[in-house]
């Protein structure tokens, strides 16, 4: 059963801004799905449409079979982290959660539980204005868990987290998924969620470019030949003229199109020395570039 089902979602802000353009997708139960794309791709707007905070210009979306506003006790079914700034700075972390819990009819004991889950119990009585960005993110995560929901919608949860915090978040999301929850998580840092998600939705400029299990998508795309050379510019020019698509990655070239052997042949013909030549499955970032590039060409 699809936990979230969006059909032909479109959202215009005014006449000029098309934030979401005819997006359709389905999120399956018990999966972690990443909504990936650069800033301005329409990820946040899409998530807010799911949660009925933003009204679509056209199209529809259901969550757990209903529109969000039609859910009974929505906090107990869907938890959301939309940004870490949704707290009054003068309120303590605990009171910020108590306010949300009171509105949802959730007892204060659950507030303390969620604060423990996100390891914020020590700072619970401090005003939110004294929290670091990472602490605010954890507080927002605690808010999303107050109702012990079966679905979690998290918008850029790793924003402001240090590497230790990112590791913590990855482990935490995996734990949530292992409990059978469905998690929809957006990020503009593709590498950040690569190790966490099962399925992905790739968005750019309001459009959904691709969706599916991450392994299937990466397997269906062209492998990338990574090559390092002290004469990278000369090699790049030769490869481009032979019809290959080349991206520069620091001191290496990521080549799509020819095989490793063909790249080696081009280098040999040009008299270019190679320091490294290997074939690898594309990373999410490379996958995104391929898909976005393909769309542009179309």
């Amino acid at each position, binding site marked *: 059963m699809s936990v979230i089902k969006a059909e032909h979602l479109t959202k215009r*802000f005014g006449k000029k801004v098309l934030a979401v353009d005819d997006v359709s997708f389905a999120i399956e139960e018990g999966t972690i799905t990443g909504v990936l794309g650069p800033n301005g791709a329409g990820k*946040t*707007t899409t998530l*807010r449409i799911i*949660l*009925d*905070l*933003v*009204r679509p210009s056209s199209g529809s979306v259901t969550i757990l079979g209903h529109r*969000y*506003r039609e*859910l009974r006790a*929505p*906090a107990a079914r869907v938890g*959301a982290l*939309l*940004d870490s*700034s*949704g*707290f*009054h*700075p*003068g*309120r*303590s972390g605990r*009171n*910020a959660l*108590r*306010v*949300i819990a*009171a*509105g*949802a*009819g959730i007892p204060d004991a659950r507030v303390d539980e969620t604060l423990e889950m996100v390891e914020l119990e020590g700072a619970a009585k401090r005003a939110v204005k004294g929290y670091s960005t990472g602490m605010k993110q954890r507080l927002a995560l605690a*808010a999303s868990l107050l109702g012990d929901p079966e679905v979690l919608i998290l918008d850029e949860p790793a924003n402001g987290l240090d590497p230790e915090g990112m590791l913590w978040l990855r482990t935490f999301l995996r734990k949530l998924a292992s409990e059978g929850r469905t998690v929809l998580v957006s990020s503009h840092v593709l590498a950040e969620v690569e190790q966490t998600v099962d399925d992905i939705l790739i968005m750019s400029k309001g459009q959904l470019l691709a969706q599916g299990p991450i392994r299937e998508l990466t397997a269906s795309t062209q492998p990338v030949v990574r090559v390092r050379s002290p004469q990278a510019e000369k090699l790049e020019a030769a490869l481009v003229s032979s019809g290959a698509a080349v991206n520069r990655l620091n001191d290496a070239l990521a080549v799509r199109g020819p095989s490793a052997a063909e790249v080696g042949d081009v280098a040999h013909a040009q008299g270019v020395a190679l320091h490294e030549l290997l074939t690898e499955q594309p990373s999410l970032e490379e996958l995104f570039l391929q898909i976005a590039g393909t769309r542009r060409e179309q």
Partner: protein
Amino acid sequence: MIALARAELLKLRSTRTALGLFIVILVVTLVPLVLILALVPKDWLGEEGITQFLTTASALVPLVLLVFGILGMTNEYRHGTITYSYLVTPRRWQVMVVKLVVYLLVGMVTMLVAMALVYVAILIGGAIRGVDIDATGGSTLGDYARQLVVAGLVTTFGVALGALIRAQIITVAGTLIWALFVENIIYVLKPAVGNWLPFVVFNQVSAAQMSGDGMEALTESALTRPEAFLVSIAYIAIVSVAAVFISLRRDVT
């Protein structure tokens, strides 16, 4: 709805806004009162004019409550807490209606406290100065009730304005300028129009001082109290319905 009301009350208790409101009310009511009680010659204190003046020490409270109502709503947008309010209660009209009702009651309770403070302060001040002052200033129970109702309505009016405009500074400054200056200018220049303006109407419901000596020219076209009360309710209803309607349609981005 009860859970939402609890959340609203907790919002008020868990920040310093309510404490700040209380301090401002103490200042605007008690400071002038104490100064008059302390500095006015003893012989004057028992006179009717002074007594009436003392008992209107809480007249500025509705203005503070108006700002309090505006802050109560605009802070939700300013700090983004409205997102959680709508996530927990996606039927937005419920969020708005509960907020309007809670602030109506809080406004009335605050006014009651302010009036009690004034009453007690006059009694204590009179006792210290050795003068027997009528701490009610001749006000009837009905006068007090009207003041309470207007305080509640003005607070609700502030909430509704905050929902309509959202920008905190613009709403607070604009409303105060309108209430303190623009309406008064229109009221003096064109009483027939001024008597229908919202804050003039609120005053007509509550303030005994509007019908004092020398006010005949201005009050000639004034509404009767029942009329003013109905117009006040109409203002609140229109602004509140508009606030709920806009809240239903507004994107929370």
